[in-house]
């Protein structure tokens, strides 16, 4: 199965989702991220969804799970690049991404984490 690449940048992990997500890839990503956080001692995770044209309940649940599990593993997750149409749709779908930090783009997401977002 195709797995999404996870890049390590300083003390952060970056995943940039560039393909149409299948559910099995979503589950694999969740597991791979947990492993990599422990393995690298990363303090932050940036998930770039700029290229995603939809986020449904399955992907939304993965984002929430990654945010929760990274917190347990002493790291913080930021989701960046959500398209406006995706955000509007998520609200109507009924998915509140409460507890998930978001930023406009990767650069801002990284800055948010290095500004102590990872410590709070």
């Amino acid at each position: 199965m195709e797995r999404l690449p996870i890049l390590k940048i300083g003390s952060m992990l970056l995943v940039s989702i560039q393909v149409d997500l299948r559910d099995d890839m979503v589950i694999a990503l969740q597991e791979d991220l947990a492993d990599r956080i422990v393995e690298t001692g990363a303090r932050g995770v940036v998930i770039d969804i700029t290229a995603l044209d939809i986020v449904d309940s399955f992907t939304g649940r993965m984002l929430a799970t990654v945010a929760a599990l990274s917190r347990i593993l002493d790291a913080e997750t930021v989701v960046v690049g959500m398209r406006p149409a995706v955000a509007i749709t998520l609200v109507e779908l009924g998915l509140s991404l409460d507890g998930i930090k978001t930023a406009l783009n990767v650069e801002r997401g990284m800055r948010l984490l290095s500004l102590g977002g990872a410590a709070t």
Partner: protein
Amino acid sequence: MSAQELAIAGDADVVRVRQAVRAAAVSAKLSLVDQTKLVTAASELARNTLTYGGGGGAVVEEVFNGLRKGVKAIFHDKGPGIADLQLALTDGYTSGSGMGLGLGGARRLVDEFTIDTAPGDGTTVTVVKWAR
């Protein structure tokens, strides 16, 4: 565009259904937000067909109402059916490990939503989204 019939038998098929619905929505000139809403609803319904219906199919077609264009998507399976539809449509109810948002959410995201289901007799969900 003529009606397109797609099988739903695995995760890759859910992706293909989303792509077919997106193409039809673009062709019917739905706005970007409406395209996104319809494709998201289709993703939820295709996944339900796979997860709970044990697989099935989708029919995607362009529809017309006078000069107005829209997209109709039908999701059908021969699975166990839904015994308590009211409950299944309730936000937060899941018989599996989901969030229970798919059905109720899909209904909110489209203009027309009908379910035809009976215990032991499979499930067919039909949705339509019209261009504004």
